[in-house]
C-alpha cells in the first residue's frame, strides 16, 4: 500500500473550504486589474471597479472547479511525456527564482551569472529524481527586464526537461510565450503538449496585483498551465492558527482558479502555494518550519478534496549553507510532501528563505527526492509468500545474496543512492579521501556536467530561440546576449 499522511479530516476540510468560499462571496478580495475585473463582472461576480473590489458567487466558484482539469501532463522540448501531474503522482522540481547563488568553490554568496545558470541546466538534465527544470535563479548579467525570459531561454536552449517558471512583468509574457511557440511550432501544439508551468502569486492578504492577475489571464489564453502560489504568513498577514491560514489560502487560491477558468475554461492549473509561519524572533518566514510544512500538506489535502492537482514549495531549507539544518529541513519537507502525494514539489537546491540557490545542495536534494520516491512505493509482497522456501535456502546457503528471489527483486526493492550519500564503512571512506559532504557533492556536480549531452532540439529551433531572445534584449538596450549563453 502507498503510505500517506493526513492532517485534516473530511469535516475540517469542508469547514475550511466553506469559510474560504464565504470570504470570497461575502467579503470579497481586491484585484488591481481592470481586465480581470471585467472578466469577473461578465462572469457574474459583483465588481466595484473604483475600489478594485470583487465579490464572487458560489456558482462562479463551482463552475471554475468544474472546468479546471483534474490533472495534466508536461512534455519535454522534444515533445515526449515527462511529468504527470495527476492523482497522487509525485514529481520534484528545483526551487525557483533565487536572487543569490552560493558559490561552491568559494563558499560565498554572490549574484548568479549566465555560466552558473547553464551549469545548473546541465546538471538538472542528468538528475534522475528531478522531473523538470525550474527557472531556479536569476542571472545578474543581463538587463533586469529580461531576467525572467532569459532564464526560460537558457533552459529551453540547453535542457530538455519541461520548465516551471513565471514572469516578473506583464510585458515578459509575450517573449516567454513566443519562446515556447518556437519550440512547439504552433499554439495548438503547445496546448496539446504543455511545456511549462507558470507560477502566479496572489498578494496576501486577499489581493491580486495587476501583473500577476494579468499573467493568469495571459497564460489561460494560451492554455499554459498555472500554479497558484498564495503566501499567507501565519500570525503576520494571516491568522496565527494553521486552520486560519488554510482558510485564507483557500480563498486566495480559489480566486485565482476562478480567474483562470473564466479567461479560458479548461486551462490546466495546480492548487499550489508557498505559505509560511512568521517567526517573530527574527521577523522571517521559515520555509523549513514544521508548521509551514504542515500547512503545505494540509492545503494539498484541500486541493485533492476539490479534485485538483497540487503543488508546494516545501522541499527546501532556510539554512545559509549546505549543513545539517539544510538536510533535515529539506528531508522533512520532501518526506511529508511525498506522503501527501503533492504532484509538483518545488524546492530542491534552495536555501535561505527561497533566496539562495546551491548546486551542491541540489545534488544532495536529488538523493533525498530519490529516497522519498522509493518510500512512497511502500511495502508490497514480492514473491514472499509462501516464505518457507526462502528460509530453507537461507539456512542452507548461509546467505541469500544470489538467490533467485534476490536477483529478481533486489533492484526494485532496494534503492541505491548516488555517491553523494556516504554509505562506505569508515576504512573505505578514509581510503577514498575522507571526503566531506561538500566535496562529494562537488564531485557529483562535475560528474553530471561531464555526462551532459546537448539538447536534441533541432539547430534551427535553437537559432530561432536565440533570435527571439536577442531581439528582446535589444528592446532594453542590450546589443548582445552574454557570450556563453548561445
Amino acid at each position, binding site marked *: 500500500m502507498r503510505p500517506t499522511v493526513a492532517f485534516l479530516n473530511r469535516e475540517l476540510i469542508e469547514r475550511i473550504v466553506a469559510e474560504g468560499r464565504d470570504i470570497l462571496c461575502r467579503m470579497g478580495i481586491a484585484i488591481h486589474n481592470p481586465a480581470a475585473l471585467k472578466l469577473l463582472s461578465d462572469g457574474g461576480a459583483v465588481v466595484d471597479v473604483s475600489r478594485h473590489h470583487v465579490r464572487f458567487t458560489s456558482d462562479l466558484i463551482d463552475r471554475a472547479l468544474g472546468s479546471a482539469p483534474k490533472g495534466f501532463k508536461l512534455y519535454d522540448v522534444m515533445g515526449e511525456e515527462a511529468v504527470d501531474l495527476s492523482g497522487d503522482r509525485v514529481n520534484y522540481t528545483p526551487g525557483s527564482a533565487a536572487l543569490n547563488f552560493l558559490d561552491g568553490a568559494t563558499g560565498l554568496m554572490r549574484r548568479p551569472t549566465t555560466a552558473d545558470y547553464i551549469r545548473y541546466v546541465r546538471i538538472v538534465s542528468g538528475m534522475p529524481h528531478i522531473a523538470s527544470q525550474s527557472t531556479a535563479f536569476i542571472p545578474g548579467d543581463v538587463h533586469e527586464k529580461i531576467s525572467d525570459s532569459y532564464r526560460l531561454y537558457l533552459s529551453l536552449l540547453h535542457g530538455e526537461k519541461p520548465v516551471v517558471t513565471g514572469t516578473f512583468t506583464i510585458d515578459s509574457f509575450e517573449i516567454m510565450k513566443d519562446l515556447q511557440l518556437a519550440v512547439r511550432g504552433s499554439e495548438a501544439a503547445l496546448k496539446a503538449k504543455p511545456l511549462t508551468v507558470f507560477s502566479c502569486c496572489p498578494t496576501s492578504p486577499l489581493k491580486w496585483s495587476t501583473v500577476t492577475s494579468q499573467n493568469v489571464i495571459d497564460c489561460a489564453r494560451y492554455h499554459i498551465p498555472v500554479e497558484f502560489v498564495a503566501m499567507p504568513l501565519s500570525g503576520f498577514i494571516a491568522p496565527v492558527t494553521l486552520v486560519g491560514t488554510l482558510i485564507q489560502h483557500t480563498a486566495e487560491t480559489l480566486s485565482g482558479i476562478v480567474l483562470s477558468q473564466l479567461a479560458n475554461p479548461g486551462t490546466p492549473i495546480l492548487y499550489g502555494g508557498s505559505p509560511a509561519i512568521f517567526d517573530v524572533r527574527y521577523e522571517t518566514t521559515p520555509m523549513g518550519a514544521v508548521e509551514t510544512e504542515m500547512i503545505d500538506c494540509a492545503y494539498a489535502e484541500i486541493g485533492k478534496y476539490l479534485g485538483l492537482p497540487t503543488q508546494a514549495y516545501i522541499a527546501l531549507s532556510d539554512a545559509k549553507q549546505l549543513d545539517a539544518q539544510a538536510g533535515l529541513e529539506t528531508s522533512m519537507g520532501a518526506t511529508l510532501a511525498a506522503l501527501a502525494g503533492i504532484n509538483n514539489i518545488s524546492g530542491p537546491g534552495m536555501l535561505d528563505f527561497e533566496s539562495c540557490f546551491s548546486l551542491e545542495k541540489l545534488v544532495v536534494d536529488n538523493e533525498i527526492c530519490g529516497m522519498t520516491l522509493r518510500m512512497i512505493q511502500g511495502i508490497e509482497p514480492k514473491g514472499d509468500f509462501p516464505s518457507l522456501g526462502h528460509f530453507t535456502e537461507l539456512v542452507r546457503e*548461509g*546467505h541469500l*545474496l*544470489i538467490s533467485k528471489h*534476490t*536477483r529478481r527483486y*533486489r533492484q526494485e526493492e532496494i534503492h541505491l543512492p548516488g555517491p553523494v550519500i556516504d554509505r562506505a564503512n569508515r*576504512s573505505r571512506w578514509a581510503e577514498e579521501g575522507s571526503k566531506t559532504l561538500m566535496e562529494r557533492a562537488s564531485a557529483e556536480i562535475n560528474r553530471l556536467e561531464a555526462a551532459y549531452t546537448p539538447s536534441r532540439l533541432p539547430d534551427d529551433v535553437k537559432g530561432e530561440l536565440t533570435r527571439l531572445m536577442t531581439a528582446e534584449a535589444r528592446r532594453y538596450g542590450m546589443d548582445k546576449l552574454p557570450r556563453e549563453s548561445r
Partner: protein
Amino acid sequence: MDLLANLSQSLQDGDDEKVAALTKEALAAGMSAKQILDNALISGMTVIGNRFKAHEIFLPDVLLSARAMYAGLELLKPLFLKDDIPSRGKVVVGTVQGDLHDIGKNLVSIMLKGAGYEVIDLGNDVPPERFVDTAVAQGAAIIGLSALLTTTMPVMSQVAALLKERGLTGRIKLIIGGAPVSDAYAREIGADAYGFDAVKAVEIVDRFLMRQ
C-alpha cells in the same frame, strides 16, 4: 569469440550453465584441463576480483561468478591427478572459537578459491589448536582467522601464541580479519597481516606466497 574467452566471459556474467556447457565443449575440442583452468576460469575470476576491487561490481556479482567457476571446476576435477586441482597454495581459514559469524570468512574463502588457491575451510567456532594442527597436517602456508565479536577476537592472539610456542611463527603466516580487528591489533598480537576485506585478503595471500 575464441572459446576460452567466451568461457571466461560467461564466468564473468555469472552464467553457471553456460560455463559448464563451454567447459565441456573446450574439453571435447581437446584443450587440457590446466589450460581451461588457467586461461578461462582463473583469468575470468581475476577480472571479477579487479572489478570488485574497483567497485564496478558488487558482492552478489562476485558470488555468481564464483558459482559459475565451480560449475566449470567440477567438470575439470576428475581430470587432474587424484582429483586434485593444481593450486597456487593452501590456506586454512575459519571463524575463531566462540564466534558463529561466518559471512566474512566465507567471502574470503570464495575469493581465494577464485584466485586459484586451495582453501581448507574449518567453518566457525574453531579452537586455536585446530587451526594450527590442520595447517601443519595439510602443509598450508597461511592461516586466516575471522572474528566479528570483540569478545572473541582475543582467541586470535591465542592462535598467534600457539604458532610461536610451536616455533611456526613466520613459517605459517597468520592473517586476521573481521569488523572489530585492525592493522594495529594485528601488530599487537603478532599476526602477519590484517585484511580489511576479501579482496585485500587475496592481495595479502598473493604477496606472502609469492615470496616463498
